[in-house]
């Protein structure tokens, strides 16, 4: 799988393998689990899925890369579950259901909260947006979503938006390719002052 190979390349260049962690977030039903499944290898080392009281966490580790996926559940006290990763994550995958036009404002609200979060505000963490469910007839284009979310205002973090279909895998590789190259840059270049270690 392309994902792992790319990560292996990054990791091989480093003497001491460093734990890379990627946070996959988005509203419920946006397609996170489907995306995670697509990337999971058959011989995934650790795979936990805890669908409990109102929120979902999925976690798996592969070749030193840890993936954690969270549903952005509304209830206040669960928020710090994913916010807790902001400090340390090396990359963020933000999954959007492009066919749920009504909730685009909720996505924007969550994204703004994320960008304003003190642990993330000044960190240069690459964000990959998946405009998922591109196969749906009423799906908004990635350009429209970028405009709706005001992405051009995000200037202190590298970002990219890719249309995807998590069911067929279309678009996923492209996006992840971009993310890995960004992480590679961030990991290999000496961390800037703001990065916590």
């Amino acid at each position, binding site marked *: 799988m392309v994902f792992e190979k790319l990560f292996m390349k990054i990791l091989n260049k480093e003497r001491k393998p460093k734990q890379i962690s990627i946070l996959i977030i988005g*509203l*419920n*039903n946006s397609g996170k689990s489907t995306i995670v499944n697509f990337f999971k290898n058959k011989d995934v080392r650790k795979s936990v899925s805890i669908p409990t009281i109102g929120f979902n966490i999925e976690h798996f580790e592969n070749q030193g890369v840890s993936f954690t996926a969270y549903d*952005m559940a*509304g*209830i*206040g006290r669960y*928020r710090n579950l994913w916010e807790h990763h902001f400090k340390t994550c090396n990359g963020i995958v933000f999954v959007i259901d492009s066919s*749920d*036009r*009504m*909730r*685009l*404002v*909720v996505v*924007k*609200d*969550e994204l703004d*909260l994320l960008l304003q979060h*003190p*642990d993330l505000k000044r960190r240069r963490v690459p964000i990959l947006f998946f405009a998922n469910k591109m196969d749906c007839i*009423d799906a908004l284009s990635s350009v429209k979503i970028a405009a709706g979310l005001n992405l051009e205002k995000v200037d202190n973090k590298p970002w990219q938006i890719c249309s995807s279909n998590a069911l067929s895998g279309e678009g996923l590789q492209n996006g992840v390719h971009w993310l890995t190259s960004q992480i590679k840059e961030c990991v290999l270049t000496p961390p800037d002052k703001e990065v916590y270690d």
Partner: protein
Amino acid sequence: MSKTRWLDALSDGTAGLKTISSCMSVCDLKNDNYYKLIAAEISFDLEIKPRLRVYKGTQVVHDQNLPGIPSAVESLYIDETHPKMPIVAVSVGPSILFYRNMKPYFKYTVPSLIIEPLEMEIWKKLVSDRSDNYQKHIDDLKSINTSELSTLSQQLITLNDDEREFFIRDNMEPKLERLPTIVAMTKIYKSIEEEKSSNCLIIATESSDILIMDVQSFNILHQARVCNFKATPDLLSASGSFQNDFKIVIATREGSLCILRKNWLEGREIVKLENPATAMCLLQIDQTIVVLNTVLAMTFGKLGLEDHVLVLVTNNGSLLIKILKRTAEFSEPLSVESKTTEDSTNMTVAIPKKTKIFIEQTIREKENASAIHNIFQSELWRMRLEAAKTTIDILRTGDSTFSGDYQTPLKLLAQVDGLGPDFLLTVTLENISATKIAGNLSILLHADPEHYKIKRRYADLSPLMPGIPLEMDFQVSVALTPDNLLPSDMTTENSIIRVLIIKENLSKPLIASTVVMPQPELQLLIT
């Protein structure tokens, strides 16, 4: 805390939707957890047929004609079978059309009201008499109050001379029916009070009847009058289940609010408003939402995958969807929480030394982790269940022992001691706000002076500190007749005392609660 608690999901000025609140309903129509809005489009242009539409978010995904102007739309579950597919009920005139998968499958018509014997008499004469005598019979018909005439007679008296003859000839075997128009509908649960459990439909008619229907068999389970005087229902709101207990609040066109409970044959007036209510909603949010146009209709509930959505339709046909922010807080944040996270990262935490007990406990926890976790989880669920039960109990029993005002949250408890005719009424008032003092309050006891003598019926209250209950005693005596008998018109039902908590400069009481007084034990008085 941000200023607004609402996200504007959509302001579609082109929706062209004209409707009223009672003609909107939100439900999980396809059982895919994506809640949709069902709305009847009522055009003010009589040429255009009303339509029944389904909106997914803001897009119309279904659109069909309705046979007449609807008065209410309701979505219901008819049984407990899976998958859970709701049906849609639309009232048009005296009938209700039931839709399954948005296809009509049943039409129910409310039973006819009684026809005046005089009217039947007149029709007997009409169909047998010569046309020269029609005028006399029609004048007789006109002597009956128009609203008490059958539809057929109502039509007849509006016709001109030459049309009458044909009309009567067409109706030689007249079917005299007086079908009351359905003015409002709502629903309660049948027995299990859970989302997506089966419902009963509540129907209010122009003739002031409230019908409770089993939507599986279409049988009327219970029928009651709105009130003991003339009151035409206008808006309905209900809670509870048919089997356990339920409460129906009816706003009438005459401006009263009536309440109807299980087993009652007649509703009771609880409030008389100066003007009839225009909308009834169970929302209590301190925020004002500014909408540029007049709001015609609104509904609140689940929509799409969001739990708290307000849907507004304005008079220019715009559809506004407002989603409650997930981070919206409805209580003031405590000022001590203003420390920033940057500060906390520099703080060192004093970690105590590991004691033997601590280590032993850790080992125990390690060994029995899953058991401890399971016990904790089950206790947690039990506690949640208890909390939910208590909440439901409070909602069911308390008419309004909680203040609805967000600025001054109060809780009221009342207790009656004594055997009578002298009672001691103890009122406990508690400020349940976390931080705010509640000041400028007064208490007023109100009862029929023919029934009760209250020594002190009004008192100004000292400011209430949060969490410290204030207890007040009031002496209440039954106003006995000179020969020590109960007032003649006193019944168990009107043995009540109203307790009102009033705030200065507020025209509406914060709490209006009714205390049901026990019947005095008069035998004890005589012996």
